[in-house]
């Protein structure tokens, strides 16, 4: 009986720890400012802000890969869907005022990607911090 109780308690405890672990990802410098100002990022027409954010969260690979083919193969440039714009808002700054790569551990991209166990390949080629001249 006591063994059963121990198993039960440990399951309870681990679920509590898992809950505590579920923190909001580090949004990044500009994105946090944006959110604090009460602005609605990623808002789509005819959709609530919450729904737009869910769409962005679920669909960002599809949105990006669709745009990347159009840009590279057809020369379509501009628009809101650009990987460098993701990086621009979602990077954080360290104590020395330097940008931390967006794919570094505990940064915006890697928090979720690590959690769901999906690879993050964009940044083996793409720049991980905002452009130098900024």
């Amino acid at each position, binding site marked *: 009986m006591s063994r059963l109780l121990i198993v039960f308690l440990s399951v309870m405890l681990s679920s509590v720890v898992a809950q505590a672990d579920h923190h909001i990802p580090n949004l990044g410098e500009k994105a946090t400012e944006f959110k604090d100002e009460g602005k609605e990022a990623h808002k789509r027409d005819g959709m609530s802000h919450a729904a737009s954010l869910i769409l962005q969260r679920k669909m960002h690979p599809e949105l990006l*890969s669709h745009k*990347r*083919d*159009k840009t*590279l*193969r*057809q*020369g*379509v*440039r*501009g*628009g809101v869907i650009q990987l*460098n714009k993701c990086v621009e808002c979602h990077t954080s700054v360290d104590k020395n005022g330097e940008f931390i*790569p967006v794919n570094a551990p505990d940064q915006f991209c890697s928090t979720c990607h690590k959690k769901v166990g999906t690879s993050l390949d964009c940044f*083996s*080629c*793409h*720049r*991980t*911090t*905002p*452009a130098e001249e900024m």
Partner: protein
Amino acid sequence: MKELNRRDFIKTTTATSAGVVTIASGITLTTYAARPKESDPVTNEKRWGMLIDTNKLTESNIDDMVNACQEEHGWGNETHSTGDQKAGWIKKVKVKDKATERISNLALMCQHCEEPPCVDVCPTNASMKREDGIVLVDRHLCIGCRYCMMACPYDARSFVHETLTDQKTHMPRGKGTVEACTMCVHKVDKGEAPACVASVNSDAVVFGDLYDPTSKINQTLKKVQSTQIRADLNLNTGVRYSGI
């Protein structure tokens, strides 16, 4: 006069009709801006090309071109790559006529062929030609097999052998993929000239739309003698040379 057989007849007529299309699109170009918005796809009404005059191009000009390219795209400071592994998007090449001993220096980069062998051999369709004639590598699809490097008669492509960081925002580069001159496609799409062309002050390097009869490159090509390197391969390169 040579008597045409059926096959030759078809060949000639196709070539002639293609010429008409080119002229026709050239005429439309003078009336309409081909690409008014950056959100419009590029079309085959334009073909970007370059004319390099080796008589006017000095050796320091070529060095400037190489440096401008390196600065624009961020290649050339790979620390672990040695010898042939090093990136070389644009190179200084010395050609010597054995009979006359005349030496000319030229800048050699991707020639942006109309019939690119690199595109023919690519197993994943990563090596591709845009509608406006710029030949690129889609690094999203590139598996790093390097067939295109073998196929290229100009040795224009290089392979990234090491992990890179701090790439330029407009020019992603990464280990395990092939890369080459992009004719500064990011600048061309904004209506600017490629970095190497902008670095030369004289008119030794002319860049523009080969199809547009009002463009400087089109008019110069009509006047001066020019050649394609390895013209015997019938690749119809976008980069032409005069003075060699």
